[in-house]
């Protein structure tokens, strides 16, 4: 997921030597459809194409997350039900249609070389949906590409940026 498309995701996919299809969600199409506002997460679909789990946060480094996934893939009974009960189900109410619309328009503006206008729309989208980390980080990535796309993601800078924003909002 990145408004800036395949070119910024490709190095990561190649580095992971992924054997599965890597799809590009430039306009956050799935985020809108399945009502999530952060990544990383997983959504599981059964053999009939029915959604059986998620969207829920997921980290491959987390042993419980790995057990959930392998358990489900190996048809272990009840593995999802147990986890869903402890997770409390899906995300909260998704009432941020305006934010989604502005996000999509920002995407259009960015593709048409109107970066400043795109950022403005994203900032308004974030005002409508302040907990949306996809929008939040997308603004950072557009305004400070050197912190995101020069080989490594500078998570130290992100932490400092959050502190700066918190101070500004005080």
């Amino acid at each position, binding site marked *: *997921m*990145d408004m800036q498309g*395949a070119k*910024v*995701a*490709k190095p990561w*996919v190649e580095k992971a030597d992924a054997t599965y*299809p*890597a*799809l*590009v*969600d430039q*306009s956050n*199409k*799935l985020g809108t*459809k399945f*009502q*999530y506002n952060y*990544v*990383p*997460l*997983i*959504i*599981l*679909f*059964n*053999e*009939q*194409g*029915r*959604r*059986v*789990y*998620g*969207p829920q946060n*997921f980290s491959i480094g987390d042993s419980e997350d790995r057990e959930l996934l392998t358990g*489900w*893939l190996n048809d272990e009974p009840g593995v999802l039900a147990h986890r869903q009960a402890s997770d409390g189900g*899906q995300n909260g109410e*998704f009432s941020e*249609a*305006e934010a*989604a*619309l*502005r996000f*999509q*328009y920002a995407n*259009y503006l960015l593709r048409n070389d109107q970066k400043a*206008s795109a950022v*403005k*729309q994203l900032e*308004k989208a974030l005002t409508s949906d302040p907990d949306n980390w*996809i929008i939040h*980080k997308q603004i*950072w*990535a557009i305004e400070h590409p050197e912190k*995101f*796309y020069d080989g490594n*993601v500078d998570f130290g800078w*992100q932490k400092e940026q959050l502190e700066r924003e918190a101070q500004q909002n005080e």
Partner: protein
Amino acid sequence: MIGLRMISKTFRTLITISLMVISLGIMPGKRQVLGDSMQSIRIYESTEDTTYHTAAIARGNQLYLSSNFLTSSLGLERKPLPNGTTGLCLGDLCIPMVSRSGDDPVYQEDNQEYYSINYFLDALGSRYTWDRESGTFLLGLRASNQQSPEQGTTPVEFSLPTMDGQEVQLSDYRGRKVVVFAWASW
């Protein structure tokens, strides 16, 4: 060169005439209602991912677009309805454009009909937002306004492109379990 100059001059004249016509077209004209304003507006239609420019009448929170624009650009047609009213229709889905709780969804000026796009979208249940600062009206005319299907109820479908631009659908994997892992480098 002379030929080019003549063409150029003719072209400039045509542009000037066109601009005059457009200017006259968007002048307040005979409207007498206080608070209305004709303005040039950009429409962003998210399901087509495209923008249009048109003249529109702003009246309070309502934005009125000409029936000509609605038909030619957004594909909305006026149709007579069985109850004698006029509907604004997206395919077979028609919204009666009749006054509701004081809002007048139709506006007449200089033999041109303007329809409140807010009224239509509200009735349709479509999402929209009016960014007055940039003079842009954002709408999702054909966007599904429905919540995603409840877990386990109906099969889901979506498609996304691969890195190489090949479209992949979820239904391509019917008969197999699918794990969708959503991530970003940041």
